[in-house]
């Protein structure tokens, strides 16, 4: 670490700069808000980033301008807010209610009121980012805010009414001032290095600093968006010490397009990468839209999703089928490996001491590609089975097949037998039936609370059939809710 470090966290709480001597590096933003400034509006509903009652809006610099995103305060470590702005529900109204708040009141969008502060913040953020075009955009903003009372109708109506309201002059002035403050802090270019009662928290700014920090603290936990690591503290009661954040490493925050690849830095969030991934494949974009919630995607990174070695991890099976690779870095240098080789077995990845995930290299040119996520609940649910298919069909026959599944084994993995049963065969239902049988031999899935082994096996087979049907002409209806079906009924 260079001498240019800082030992206190400075941030804008609302519109006021505060300097915080952090006592516990594992303290969450929610704990801080409720315990220190005693801002009790933000609620703990689950402490795992799933219910959204703690949603706050965070302002952070991106390309020199302040950008707002809604995040779950309950699993976010306070030091990660260094140099940023936190807007909690207490800062939304001035002398009058914000239009979003006003609409929620008028349209009966709160009943018990416990989820409401989080909903206000999600809708505020939608407003700050230019509003919502349609119901899908509203759903996307609200999927991560569970409400048990209203059934969501009046909340959706409030969003329709208020989220596209022009920002008031007062808001614009305040935001400009906030941006100025964040820019002046950023100009220091100091890396955060905290000493707290449970150990250091380091937020290096360059890959070399990161490699050095990791070298100095080989037992450190690396954290990016904390959408997984945060739960080790709030759910498992672990004390993470030392804690090294990769989120502030500028090089890891960037995406690059080459002729062949989209290169995604390990600190790039799902939200930031969403558009670029959608441009590679619409199906992939739809998958990203269904990963966690807006809040989770605003914090969570693809790099983190890979590094944590989840057996499901929605993105890895899709990336494996696409043929993505991984750049791993350390003080010793860098190496590139196919993503599929990174996952060795459950809980074990090909990651050497001192090494960290640097970039994910995603091929831009695919064959016929689709990925299908099946979960108990359509949105914001952890996958039961995910199938990703990247198959080249020429003259009615399969030239090559890359197929990967999540939720079928201890790691996301290729369906080798199934691929073999397809390759070189005519692209017809008979081949699919054979390949389904081969698929059975590829995986021995487990039974758990998300699905039984029998269901996983059957659904995995059927996803291959769905992929086949999608390539057929005339098309078979495969969408549950075509956008026009209910049009005649939607008035009133």
């Amino acid at each position: 670490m260079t001498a240019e470090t800082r030992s206190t966290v400075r941030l804008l709480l609302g519109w006021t700069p505060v300097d915080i001597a952090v006592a516990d590096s594992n303290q969450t933003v929610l704990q801080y808000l409720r315990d220190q400034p005693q801002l009790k509006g933000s609620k703990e509903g689950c402490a795992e980033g799933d219910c959204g009652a703690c949603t706050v809006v965070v302002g952070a610099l991106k390309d020199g301008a302040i950008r707002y995103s809604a995040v779950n305060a309950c699993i976010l470590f306070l030091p990660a807010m260094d140099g940023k702005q936190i807007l909690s529900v207490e800062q939304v109204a001035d002398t009058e209610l914000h239009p979003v708040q006003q609409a929620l009141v008028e349209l009966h969008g709160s009943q018990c009121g416990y989820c409401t502060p989080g909903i206000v913040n999600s809708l505020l953020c939608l407003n700050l980012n230019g509003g919502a075009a349609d119901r899908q955009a509203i759903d996307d903003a609200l999927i991560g805010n569970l409400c048990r009372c209203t059934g969501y109708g009046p909340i959706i109506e409030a969003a329709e009414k208020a989220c596209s309201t022009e920002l008031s002059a007062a808001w614009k002035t305040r935001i400009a001032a906030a941006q100025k403050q964040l820019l002046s802090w950023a100009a220091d270019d100091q890396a955060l290095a905290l000493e707290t009662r449970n150990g250091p928290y380091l937020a290096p700014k360059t890959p070399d600093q990161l490699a050095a920090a990791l070298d100095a603290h080989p037992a450190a936990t690396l954290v990016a968006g904390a959408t997984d690591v945060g739960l080790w503290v709030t759910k498992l009661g672990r004390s993470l010490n030392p804690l090294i954040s990769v989120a502030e490493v500028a090089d890891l925050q960037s995406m690059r397009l080459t002729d062949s690849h989209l290169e995604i830095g390990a600190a790039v969030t799902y939200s930031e990468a969403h558009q670029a991934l959608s441009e590679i494949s619409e199906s992939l974009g739809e998958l990203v839209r269904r990963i966690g919630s807006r809040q989770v995607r605003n914090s969570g990174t693809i790099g983190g999703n890979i590094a944590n070695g989840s057996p499901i991890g929605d993105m890895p099976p899709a990336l494996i089928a696409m043929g993505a690779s991984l750049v791993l870095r350390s003080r010793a240098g860098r190496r590139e490996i196919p993503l599929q080789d990174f996952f060795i077995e459950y809980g074990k990845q090909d990651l050497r001491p001192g090494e960290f995930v640097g970039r994910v290299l995603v091929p831009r040119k695919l064959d016929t590609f689709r990925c299908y996520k099946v979960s108990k609940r359509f949105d914001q649910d952890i996958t039961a089975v995910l199938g990703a298919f990247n198959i080249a069909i020429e003259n009615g026959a399969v030239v090559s097949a890359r197929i990967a599944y999540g939720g079928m084994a201890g790691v996301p993995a290729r369906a080798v037998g199934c691929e073999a049963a397809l390759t070189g065969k005519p692209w017809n239902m008979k081949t699919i039936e054979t390949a389904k049988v081969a698929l059975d031999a590829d995986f021995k899935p487990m039974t758990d609370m998300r699905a039984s082994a029998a269901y996983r096996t059957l659904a995995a087979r059927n996803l291959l059939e769905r992929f086949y049907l999608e390539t057929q002409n005339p098309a078979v209806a495969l969408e549950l809710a075509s956008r026009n079906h209910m049009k005649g009924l939607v008035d009133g």
Partner: protein
Amino acid sequence: MAELTRQKERIRGGVAQALAHDSASKHVTGQAVYVDDIPEPQGTLHIAVGSAAVAQGRITNLNLDAVRAAPGVVCVLTADDIPGLNDVSPTHSGDDPVLAGERVNFFGQPVFAVAAETFMQAKAAARLGVVDCAADTPVLTIDQALAKNYLISQDHEMVRGDAAAGLKAARNRLSGQMEMGGQDHFYLEGQVSMAVPMEDGDVLIHCSTQHPSEVQHNIAHVLDRPANAVTVEVRRMGGAFGGKESQAAQWAALAALVAVRTGRAAKCRLDRDDDMSLTGKRHELAGKWTVGYDDDGRITAADVEMATRCGNSKDLSDAISDRAMFHLDNAYYLDQVRILCKRLRTDTVSNTAFRGFGGPQGMMIGERMIESVARAVGKDPLDVRKLNFYGDEGRNTTPYHMQVEDFVLGDMIAELETTSDYRARRKAITAFNESSPVIKRGLALTPVKFGISFTTTFLNQAGALIHIYKDGSILLNHGGTEMGQGLFLKVAQVVAEEFQTDVDRIKITATNTAKVPNTSATAASSGTDMNGMAAMIAARTIKRRLIAFACNQYKVEESDVEFIPNQVRIGNQVVDFDDLIGQAYLNRVQLSATGFYRTPKIHYDRTTASGRPFYYFAYGAAVAEVAIDTLTGENRVLAVDILHDVGQSLNPAIDIGQIEGGFIQGMGWLTTEELWWDDSGRLRTHAPSTYKIPTCGDRPAHMKVKLWEKGRNAEATIHRSKAVGEPPLMLAMSVFHAISDALSSLDGYRTVPDLDAPATPERILMAAQKLKAKSR
């Protein structure tokens, strides 16, 4: 004297006005205070609980040395530290210990509690306890309990006529069965209590509960103190849904124990995992039936056996199981009927009240029975439903011998059938399904008839307290609790209407056992019916005194005194309300009154299973259209139309909110909300990451809710309104049956699919597989 011209104005916030929730502005600004938000007295301790890692067994060793030595720990409690009764059973059954002493009866059952300076310290310390058990093989499922005849209570039976003879004589017979899962309440605010020690060893508890009086009495028993030493206050809850009726007492008791023992305030807040693992849920229920019917599909006899999974203690399971039986019939006349319900014990957390209180489960069995008859006779299930509706003399007696006097579903369903375009959509769906091999659509219209009153008759009582201060401002208090349902506002509207003052003049105050005693739970949808009446009675008492005073003071007759908006007309004069109050005070008129209400007409004899347990019925109906994917079982609810009877609404906005919210909650129960225990008896769906309630995206693209315009309660309820808390949840049966309908298309609508609830993608796919195999 004010001008007479003001007389024609309407008050703000009388009955029937669609006012926003009284706390709405506080909700959206984060200023609404919940128990965990109350400023903590200095030195407040935080409590966590610890347990053994078995579902059933005798405790052989308890070593808490490490817990006591952990940082920040101030106090550790076990069963031995309880001065009074170690029981918080709502039915005084002696089987709901605050801390388990001898045996552990479900996985995670608290054996000790630790109080520390911070919440995280308490949680960390609780993990250090050593609790060894001689574990027994736990009984976890309905099947296991049935096999062992492992019961929590006696079987109960309702009989009218002779079901066996009726079945024998029936032209056709069929049998069927179904199981449905439980449901976690998933109120956004978990269980929480903060106890503040007072003088004389008394204690004040801020508690998130629907039943402050029961919490008060249970804590008094635990502390071995009279009830007057314990005060329980509830300003608002962050949702409850039945889950904070009996389930709040244990945590409140722990907070009280620590507060009394240490002399420091103590807070017991369950985090989400503890809340879901350690508190009760909706009862799982299995039912099987044999039904006799004629060739048209009219049911002539029914024999039904149900079993509820009650968990490890009695709690409210008897009343819940009874309500399942009371609602088996739903809207249908069952001639020659026998209904039996077994109450199974399992070594799992004790199940409890949840919106509908067993009614939804019983109703589902009844609806499934109807559906199976409809498929057997080859008719649209709607037609068979109509055919079996309650009717006139001879077809209007329930299985518990109550007359259904105001059956309005015939009218309502005719209206909904038309407005939802049911028949045309039915045709379109049939056509779609013929041409769509993978995606199938389904449609169902289901009714709800729900009995209103506590079936335990003595609970149907309520009290209220009204003060008018000498400046004319009004303070309102009653025994009902606010959990988001808008009760406080509705009751305030009733009082505003009585005094003809703007509702803003009425201060809504926290429920407090020191103000109104011996209250019943805010439950059974009864909150507004009972507390609204009690408040009206209190208001009328004060009004009578004011009228008598005015007559005396102004020398007029009673008929010359009229409460008009924010004023009182006395003869030819108009006096501001404030002025009259000021004058009344100076003339020593009592401006405070209590009101007490007991629901009339109801009685029930459980030994003969007959009587009139319900004051009246609430009705509703819903049409749902769904699509299912027969490759994966994934599904979407596409459209919902609801027509619901709330009588004459006290607040249409609040009522519609209850209907929409209840429907979506019911939809969750029947589709995505699945409770899953592993073989050791440990609940593995104990947080929103694994337990999936509906999200915003699950709300159908088309959802239309209408209050039935002709609705008027035939009974003299508060302004002829009807209860609305629970009944709408059951409207979601339409979603389940629409899924079932979509599946039925796979074999030409000949059979009812073998589909249990919740209809997860997995269950739908497996049911589809069976039907496909059958029709091959």
